[in-house]
Each structure stands twice: as structure tokens, then as C-alpha cells.
């Protein structure tokens, strides 16, 4: 059955329910949030409708500049670590038999679906003094006595790489599984070693995929809000943590909304960049 243009109102019927739901429960809440970001905070209650730029102005302080800088730096680090680990891994995975691939994909999906709460709890246990990895080091004689490895920056970074790694692998998977095998065969026939062929043929051919993945993981990491709280100190808090904190504990919705709008703009700009990179790849 070919696709046809809708001829009558009745042809639009299937669209009614999805359109209604998405407009009422996504577009309207999103717009509400943007509106609230211009409202005035009401110390006694919630907020009062207004049109002020105070909330945005407050954002332009040294403190929030620092938080933003830290968030971006952390997200960049997470993205680089994840792609560095995941790219060769995913490439090798796509060369394995179907059964092996399926098994890994099930495992990766299971880790990916884990709540940030559980990932945070699991790593805080692993980094703890009483039940942590340092007990293992003591057992094999590497250390004298167990120590707590958190709250530290390293703990936050490890937790976030753990959270983003399955996502990274699953984002890379379609591009790598569809990679033309003749490319590699040609290189191998011409005498390149597997590792050389990987770095000289596979990696350059997928340069745009790598850039797009880096950006997507970066946006994913920007969204982390519990791990910095569970595994780090207050100076490791990111913009997402601060938004939650302002909205819930300081009951300053307008300010939280202003920060969220700012985060949307950063994310959208980056998603747009990803699409642009992807389009160039398709054109090639």
C-alpha cells in the first residue's frame, strides 16, 4: 500500500490522540517552564506571574559560571573516556557471532536501564571502606588497610562513565554494524595488520560518527543529577543538580526554570550540531 496524502478529516483520526497528548502534556508543560523562568519568586508561596529577567541575570555570576564550567568539563571528560573505550569495543563486538552480540546487547541494555540511584548506590558501595575495592587490594597485599575512595572527583567520573558507557556502545552500534566489510578486507589484502587497518581505515571512515557520538554522550552526561550528589562533594555538583536543588529544596522555581531554559539551549545547540555532522556524513 503506497503512502497517500490524507483526503478527508477522517483520515486524520489516528493523529488526534497522539497530537492531543503531546501538545497538552509536553508542549504546554515546556512552555509553562519557559514562562515561569520570567516570573518573580514569591518568598511566602510559590511564584507570581511577572516578566522579569532577574532569574537570568542571577545566572551570570561567578558562582554559576564556575558550576557551568565544571559541568561542561565533566561532561567532556565523560564523553571522551566513553568513546575511547566504546569505539574499539563496539567495533570488535560487531565482528563477533550473532549469539555473542545478542548476549552483550542484553547485558548492556540491562545496565543502561538501571536507575541512577542504583548506580550511585552500587559505586558508593564499591568505593566504601567497609565493602569496597580497597579490601581486595589489602587481601592481595597492595595496601595496608582499606580506605574510602569517595567523595572524590574520580568517584564521580567513574560513576558517570559507567552510566554513559552502555549508552555510548548502543549509539555506536548501528554505524559500526553496518560498516562495509570490503573496506577492511581491501586494507588487509594490501598487507595492513588488523590494528593498523582499524586506525587507518575504520576510524577515519567513521570520523563524523565519532564526533556525533561524542556530542550525544556529552548531552547525556550533562543530564546526570544524582551521581555527583552521591559520589562527590558539593563542589562537584553540576548544573542538573543545582536545578533540582533550586526547584525542590530552595523552592525557587523561577530560578530553576531559568537555568533549565539555559540547559535546553546548550543541549539543542549541540543536538543541532550532531544533526549537521550526520548530514555531512550522509552526503559523502
Amino acid at each position, binding site marked *: *500500500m*503506497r*503512502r*497517500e*496524502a490524507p483526503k478527508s478529516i477522517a483520515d486524520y483520526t*489516528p*493523529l488526534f490522540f*497522539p*497530537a492531543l*497528548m*503531546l*501538545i497538552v*502534556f*509536553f508542549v504546554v*508543560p515546556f512552555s*509553562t*517552564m519557559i514562562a515561569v523562568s520570567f516570573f518573580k519568586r514569591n518568598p511566602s508561596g510559590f511564584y507570581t506571574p511577572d516578566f522579569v529577567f532577574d532569574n537570568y541575570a542571577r545566572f551570570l555570576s561567578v558562582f554559576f559560571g564556575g558550576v557551568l564550567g565544571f559541568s561542561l568539563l565533566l561532561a567532556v571528560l565523560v564523553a571522551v573516556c566513553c568513546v575511547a573505550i566504546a569505539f574499539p*569495543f563496539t567495533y570488535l563486538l560487531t565482528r563477533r557471532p*550473532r549469539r555473542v552480540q*545478542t548476549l552483550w*546487547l*542484553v*547485558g*548492556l*541494555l*540491562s*545496565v543502561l536501564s*538501571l*536507575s*541512577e*540511584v*542504583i548506580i550511585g*548506590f*552500587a559505586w558508593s*558501595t*564499591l568505593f*566504601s571502606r567497609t*565493602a*569496597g575495592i580497597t579490601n581486595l587490594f589489602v587481601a592481595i597485599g597492595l595496601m595496608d588497610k582499606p580506605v574510602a575512595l569517595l567523595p572524590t572527583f574520580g568517584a564521580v567520573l567513574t560513576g558517570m562513565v*559507567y552510566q554513559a558507557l552502555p549508552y555510548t556502545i*548502543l549509539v555506536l*552500534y548501528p554505524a559500526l*554494524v*553496518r560498516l562495509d*566489510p570490503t573496506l577492511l578486507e581491501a586494507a588487509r589484502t594490501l598487507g595492513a595488520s588488523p*590494528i593498523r587497518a582499524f586506525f587507518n581505515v575504520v576510524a577515519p571512515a567513521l570520523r563524523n560518527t565519532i564526533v556525533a557520538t561524542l556530542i550525544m554522550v556529552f*548531552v547525556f552526561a*550533562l*543530564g546526570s*543529577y*544524582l551521581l555527583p550528589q552521591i559520589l562527590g562533594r558539593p563542589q562537584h555538583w553540576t548544573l*542538573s543538580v543545582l536545578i*533540582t536543588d533550586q*526547584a*525542590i529544596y530552595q523552592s525557587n*522555581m523561577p530560578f530553576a*526554570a531559568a537555568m*533549565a531554559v539555559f*540547559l535546553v539551549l546548550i*543541549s539543542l545547540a549541540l543536538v543541532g550540531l550532531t544533526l549537521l555532522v550526520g548530514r555531512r556524513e550522509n552526503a559523502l
Partner: protein
Amino acid sequence: MTATLLRRVYFTIVALFLAAPLIVVAGVSVNSRQELSFPPVGFSLAWYAQIFTDPEWRLALIHSVTLAVCSAAIAVAVALPLAWFLWRRIAPWANIFQVLGLAPFILPPVITALGFLSFWATVGLFGQFFTAIISHAIFFVTLPLVTLSLGFASIDRSLVEAAATMGADDRTVLKTVVLPLILPYLVSGYAFAFVLSLNEYIVAYMTIGFTTETLPIKIFNALRYGYTPTMASVSVFFVAVAALVFGSIARFGDIRRLLGAMSSDGS
């Protein structure tokens, strides 16, 4: 030879990294004493029993499962007609709804959560359980939308054409040809949304977190006051549910295809 060995070492390291925290949590969860220690002291399944017997944990479990069952169903109900319309009709502007369906999943979750918080507070329904169901349904609509779009794309249009030529109207074609073909994609879309809703924290917290506890909220709240072994057993329970659901999808469907591999035969 060395290449194979290197690959094995690499795969083992990645597997260990992904499994290590879960192994420790699983070990902690069978401690016979109420303390955080690894390797476990003694062996006890009491903390698993507590998920179902302790009224607070059981209530949180019921909330989480209810939320996941209902919101995944609504997510599919929104995604199915939309995906069908986009496959059946040429209406370029309708793609805007596809973008809307994908957006909550691409943006950092705290944004969607804050949007829902300000919306439900403005309309005066903040804290009601059903607001979390609708919020989760919209938040996770992406998953059935993606799997169903893949499903529709895989349908051979000549098959449908044949049915239409034989005199079947749109409705009959949908019921007898299209729906059976996309059923596996519908089920996996539901399953994806279900598992992720079960694990979701921030949207649930910002809609009902002050009035109703789901399991992730309960774990986080418990975490603030120190350690209880039930947290560990609930975490293991979550991993088991996820592995079971995705394992079944892999068993009865083609998970590689769902995740972007072109054909069902290996590469």
C-alpha cells in the same frame, strides 16, 4: 593469535567494569547481618523477603509496578497511531509530532521533569499519582515510537497492497496484516518503556516524590539516612527484571535489529 588474546582481555575488562558494582551489591544483599560488608558475612535471603513483607518497601514496589504498567501502556497508545499515520500518509508537517515524541528523550531529563513540575503545580494537580503516570508516558513515548517506526519500515508494502487489491478496506488490512506484523515491535516498545519507567527517578520525584514513594525514590531517601540491606536486594531485583525482560525480547525477537542492525543475518 595475539589479536584474539588482546580482544579477550579487553572484553573481560569491560565486562568486569560493568559487572563489578552489581557483583558487590549482590554480595552485600545476602549478608546475614544488617551491615555493609563485602565479602558477605554468612548468608541470608531475609533482605529479599523484606521487599515483599515490609509494608513500606512493598508499597513502594506496588507504586513502581503500577506506574510502569500504566505509563508504558499509555506510551504505546500514543505511539501506535502516530507511527501508523506516519507510515500510511504523506503529511510532512505531521513529522513535528515525531520530533515532539523524541524530544523528551534527547534533552537532559531534569528539564522534562521541571516542565512537568511547573505544569502540574500550575493546574493544581501536583502530587496526584496519575500525574506521574501521564508524565512517564510522555517521557518514555520515544521508545515505542522508535521500535514501532522500525516495525512499520520493515513491512513489505506489496503485501499490504495485495490485501487491498483483494478488497480489504483500511481497517481490515490494519487488523489482519499490519498489526500481526508489528506485534513484536509493539511488545518490545512496551517492554522498553516498562523497564525504564520502573527505574526512573527524577520525573517521578518531581511529580509525586513528596506524596508517594516509588522504589528508586525510596532507595534514595533510605540512602540519605545510611545503609539498609534491603536497598541492595531491591537493586539486584531491578537488574534481574531488566535482564529477564531484555532476554525475552532477544529470545522472541531480533534485538540486534531493534538496536539498528540492518538485517537479521549477521554481518
